[in-house]
């Protein structure tokens, strides 16, 4: 009311954001618009990518995503490496959660060479444990990161500290900090160390405390609500049109979760229900992620309770140095922290893969969705929108 009385908020139908559509043609030679670049050298873009904006004042008229700054040509390099040689290379395709790629490579090779059922039960439980830990460390960066986009840096500091604790557990389990080549074809590389569960439980208790704090810091914060509510809304009918998956889809009420739809490993033995929200704006998405943080902690507890204490960690596999896989193709998918990830894997009977192709959720989120979502938005919100869509460049360009 007071806004209208004082007249500081412009009339809705005068706002340019109401009139712009993704296919408005921009005439740069008329002196109305300005072209600015966000990135690649910009603290406000997620990773090493660039967004080319055509702005009028503070309003974005046109947005173009530029990727390829992290292109390494994995899919070409894999074609000239043995299966075992390609393994350490290909897991570096996604920096945020490398374990997903390990699972893809291991699972596809097992499936195509007929060892799908040979993997021991204990190894599968360990795979689930490492995958859920990877999701947890991703969420510990992602959930407070949404506040960080609004300069709420304190939560990020707490979250990254706890993520370091999880990375310590990873180091215990796998020996590596970020790129742990743990899920190998035929099983896993090591058993659970003594006392791992107790130390993990300590960290999980810290994280429970952190979850409450971040709730008070972010979701009960008036300024955060002011900025995040009603920003970058994804409507349910956009889900299939744009191929939106994961938390972005669940944030707008569409329950898509590979763990429920096509259960892999032993996810059908755990009881959990993917959280959803209805609004589909930035607030709803980060709220869904916050609930998923709780759920992931709970899942890790369930896994550690249900998994057998010991067992075989690896099936008997052929000699990897001359391991030939018959001609075939498959598609393996799982639910990563950002949504459905998958890999299309083709073999041609030789000792090298014929073709692999990673399907990252950001491939749609960062290009098709982001470009249409930024139109009419405020320059100040670009970072928030990118983080809320969980754009991750390495999996776009591989």
């Amino acid at each position: 009311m007071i806004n209208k009385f004082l007249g500081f908020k412009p009339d809705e139908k005068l706002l340019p954001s109401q009139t712009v559509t993704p296919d408005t043609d921009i005439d740069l030679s008329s002196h109305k618009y300005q072209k600015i670049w966000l990135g690649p050298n910009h603290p406000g873009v997620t990773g090493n990518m660039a967004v080319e904006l055509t702005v009028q004042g503070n309003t974005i008229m046109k947005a173009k995503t530029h990727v390829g700054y992290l292109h390494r040509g994995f899919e070409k390099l894999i074609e000239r490496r043995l299966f075992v040689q390609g393994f350490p290379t290909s897991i570096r395709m996604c920096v945020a959660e490398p374990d997903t790629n390990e699972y893809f490579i291991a699972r596809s090779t097992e499936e195509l060479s007929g060892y799908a059922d040979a993997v021991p039960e204990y190894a599968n439980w360990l795979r689930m444990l490492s995958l859920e830990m990877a999701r947890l460390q991703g969420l510990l960066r992602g959930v407070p990161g949404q506040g960080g986009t609004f300069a709420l840096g304190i939560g990020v500091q707490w979250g990254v500290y706890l993520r370091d604790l999880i990375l310590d557990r990873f180091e215990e389990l796998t020996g590596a900090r970020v790129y742990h080549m743990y899920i190998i074809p035929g099983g896993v590389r090591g058993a659970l160390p003594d006392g791992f569960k107790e130390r993990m439980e300590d960290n999980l208790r810290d994280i429970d405390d952190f979850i409450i704090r971040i709730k008070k810091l972010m979701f009960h914060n008036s300024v955060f609500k002011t900025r995040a509510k009603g920003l970058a809304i994804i409507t349910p009918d956009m889900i299939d049109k744009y191929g939106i998956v994961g938390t972005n889809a669940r944030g707008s009420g569409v329950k898509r979760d590979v763990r429920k739809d096509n259960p892999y490993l032993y996810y059908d033995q755990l009881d959990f229900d993917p959280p959803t929200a209805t609004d589909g704006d930035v607030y709803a998405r980060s709220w869904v992620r916050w609930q998923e943080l709780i759920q992931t902690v709970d899942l890790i507890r369930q896994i550690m309770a249900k998994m057998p204490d010991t067992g075989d960690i690896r099936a008997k596999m052929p000699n990897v140095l001359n391991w030939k896989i018959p001609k075939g193709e498959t598609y393996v998918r799982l639910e990563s922290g950002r949504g459905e990830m998958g890999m299309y894997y083709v073999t041609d009977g030789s000792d090298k893969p014929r073709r692999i192709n990673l399907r990252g959720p950001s491939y749609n989120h960062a290009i098709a969705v982001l470009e249409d979502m930024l139109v009419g938005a405020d320059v100040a919100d670009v970072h928030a929108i990118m983080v809320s869509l969980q754009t991750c460049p390495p999996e776009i360009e591989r």
Partner: protein
Amino acid sequence: MSIYVKLAYTFLGLMIVLNWGMLMGATMRKIGARMAGRHGIPFRQPWINLLKNISTRTIITHGVMYYMGPVFRLVGGVGLFLFMPVVFSGGVDGPWTNFSFQGDLVLILYFQMFGMLGMALGAGQGGHPYSAMGIARGLAQHAAVELPLTMAIISIAIQFDTLSIYKIVEAQQGGFQNWVLFTNPFAAAAIILAMLGALGHSPFNLVKAPNEILIGPATEYEGTYLGFMQSAGAIIHVMEAVLFMNLVFGGATSWIELIVKSFLIYFWSVFVGMVFPRFKIEQSITWFFKVPLVLGLLAIIIYMF
């Protein structure tokens, strides 16, 4: 006392203020680091940064106005210092009353704006689109801050029937019950809220929002220019705090009191900034025109009759 002694005193006071500003900035960053659980920067860091910036070899200028920007900002800070009684002791021409005179309140309000205008010139010639956007946001928000501040100051001027900061401080001596904070609570509330914007911390630091517009007006500045701006920033932070201290919190009768009070005033904005995200520009302007402006108007209305 003779003008030379006064000049010497003024220069000494400026040095004290500069160093105290740097120390205060480092302390605030340390407090923020401790809230995050970090150790934080060493206390000497600001001085070393200043040295390093001065010792930069490459210095690029984009023209005269680009060069004048930091100078204007420094002049704004020094002007704030020159025409304000810093420490209230020793009568009207005491050692630390500097060149305070009748009606300096108006001049101070002008000098508050001065640095921002200089930055606008410099950023404009710097030619970086983000500096232009930053300074546009800065000027808009500064105008929004100035309005409630001016309302409150007018109310205080009506209350004490003077435009001299020295007189205002003098009238508040003799116990905290005489402070404007208690004698004119509405104006005090308006000033305390407007302080958040004037001291430029989150949620009102959109001017230099790193993840949107790099660091705004200072995007193109480097080396000695940046050193200038750092020292100017240190002085301005202290002097803004001193201004609010003089207006609301009864001034200071000694350097110790000044240091304590200015620290607390500055800490108030840091304290708020730690736990609140950043407003968008139109949101912050709307906020300033909602709460503090209404309070300032109330203060005036009360003291008109």
